[in-house]
């Protein structure tokens, strides 16, 4: 009795006269997520790009079509400076974490004692929220009581305390260092995972053939890790190209605009300058560059899939 009741119920549901096709059913499953993406990403993105062609304010109603005027203003104005500073920040915050992360991955992969504990500890910088990274480095770089000044004075690298975050000459370097501290653990984890897929037999065979450590690094490790190295560099580059939090909290793009990147410039122009048209124009140019990077990334990951 008890077993027949549910089974008959089930068969009635599946024998419904009109059953949705699998395609329609799958679409219904996708729908909530798709609606969110369209409402929160696609629609705002398109309208933001469209504002590039209008004179529009965040606080006043109405707008006026101005054609390419905003874009010309940006291109003849801050564009080259923003591009240069964004590139400096992005390249710095991609290469330094890569070098540190790779060195650590190689070291931990030799299975020195306590490698597992060390790996866990090294992840701390990557775990803390972005604003915490900013607070901490703001304190370290503090002009009057900062530990960075004390350290560098102690080893004789500087004569007097520096206001690292308030001098155009040093602010970008300070911001890059803070972001590097946050990013390298991710690089380490990814590269360590890659290193452990390199077949041991390759190293053993090469060692029997007389290849030294350095030779094996360049002839076995690097070629075997080509895929993962390309991936982490590309992803990190794309992320840093649009990084906002740490720069914004540490310097707000200052001093004298010396740490302004596309991300902080768009934000400042829209929410402190209230000039949506100008912000949209910076954003449009930024998006064109970013899309080029994403195309490279998609090509790259498709190639990885074929392998």
């Amino acid at each position, binding site marked *: 009795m008890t077993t027949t009741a549910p089974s008959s119920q089930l068969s009635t549901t599946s024998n419904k006269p009109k059953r949705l096709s699998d395609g329609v059913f799958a679409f219904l499953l996708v729908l909530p997520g798709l609606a969110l993406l369209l409402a929160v990403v696609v629609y705002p993105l398109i309208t933001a790009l469209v504002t590039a062609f209008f004179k529009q304010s965040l606080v006043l109603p109405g707008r006026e079509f101005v054609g390419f005027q905003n874009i010309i203003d940006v291109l003849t104005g801050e564009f080259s400076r923003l591009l240069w500073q964004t590139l400096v920040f992005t390249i710095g915050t991609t290469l330094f974490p890569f070098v540190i992360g790779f060195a650590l991955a190689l070291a931990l992969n030799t299975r020195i004692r306590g490698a597992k504990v060390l*790996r866990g500890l090294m992840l701390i910088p990557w775990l803390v929220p972005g604003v915490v990274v900013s607070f901490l480095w703001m304190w370290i770089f503090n002009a009057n009581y900062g530990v960075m000044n004390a350290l560098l004075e102690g080893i004789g690298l500087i004569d007097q305390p520096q206001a690292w975050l308030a001098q155009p000459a040093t602010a970008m370097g300070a911001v890059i260092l803070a972001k590097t501290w946050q990013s390298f653990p991710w690089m380490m984890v990814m590269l360590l995972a890659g290193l452990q897929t390199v077949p041991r037999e390759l190293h053993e065979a090469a060692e029997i053939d007389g290849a030294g450590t350095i030779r094996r690094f360049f002839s076995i490790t690097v070629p075997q890790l080509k895929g993962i190295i390309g991936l982490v560099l590309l992803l990190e580059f794309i992320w840093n190209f649009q990084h906002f939090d740490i720069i914004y909290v540490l310097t707000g793009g200052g001093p004298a605009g010396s740490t302004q990147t596309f991300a902080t410039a768009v934000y400042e122009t829209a929410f402190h300058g209230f000039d949506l048209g100008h912000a949209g124009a910076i954003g449009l140019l930024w998006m064109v560059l970013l899309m080029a990077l994403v195309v490279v990334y998609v090509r790259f990951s498709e190639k990885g899939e074929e392998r």
Partner: protein
Amino acid sequence: MTLETDLPTAAPIAPVADTAGTGVQDASRRTRRPSKPNALRSERPGVRFAAWAAVIVCGGFALLPVYWLLATSLTPRTEVFAYPPQFFPSTVSWEAYESLFTNPTLFNYLRNSIIVSVITAVLSVLVSAYMGYAFSKFRYTGRRALMYFVLSSQMFPQALLLVTLYSVFAAYGLLNTYTALVLSFTTFTLPLCVWMLKGFFDTIPDELIEAARVDGASRLRIIHSIVLPLSAPGLVAAGLFAFVRGWNDFIFALTLAGPDKQTLPPGLVNTYIGEASTAWPELMAASLVVSLPVAIAFISLQRFLVGGLTAGAVKG
């Protein structure tokens, strides 16, 4: 369970799959040490030395700032404003933590953070489970295009989206509400959570679903009674990721919410940054407290770490 029989063929790819799925230490445990007597690189003194040098230099860079965070948070307020700074506080003082927990403004930010992150986690798991399942177990035209679309949505700059997202939420009267924050956070968790869950659903054998279907279970019932219970660890992991995403967010909470609805990250910036003399011990103590839930979430999903992060990045 049936894996035993497949072992010979599965062996060559097993280390790769393991590394992606369960963290990094398993692959090394797999190698049998006794059978490799001669070749271990770690036995060379030069390599050992280089390894330790790298660990000490990079480890110092990684951990000294963490020590400084901890030390400052325990330093008495009067001792912090000294140059050169005291590397070891003369007395351990809990006053920073005390004033932190008795500050009603901060408590309000904390409450907002918890509410918004928890709702984000639940909503994100719901939405991404359905989406991930549709990507995993159905084949239809446009599937690949949709998958790439979801993946690529994390590549769009948030600072730019906000330029008009702000006006969109304003038009619907959603500025300064939890709804605005939850909707935006959930959207940005989708790429990662959908990919994580798709990975989990991929491991559920089609035969199981087919058997349920033959027995007459509807497709929705298959999802709710078979697929989701089998993927419980994945759901938890995705939920924790979504929680952390909401917890850590700065730019959306800063822009879309006012002081009474703001979460901790922008709340702390408003409270401490830009004042004439920042209360550093208090700010460092607050930083530590904000980081704790993230650390706990991470420890509980460590084994999904590499898998979850690489999944969204490499699988098409």
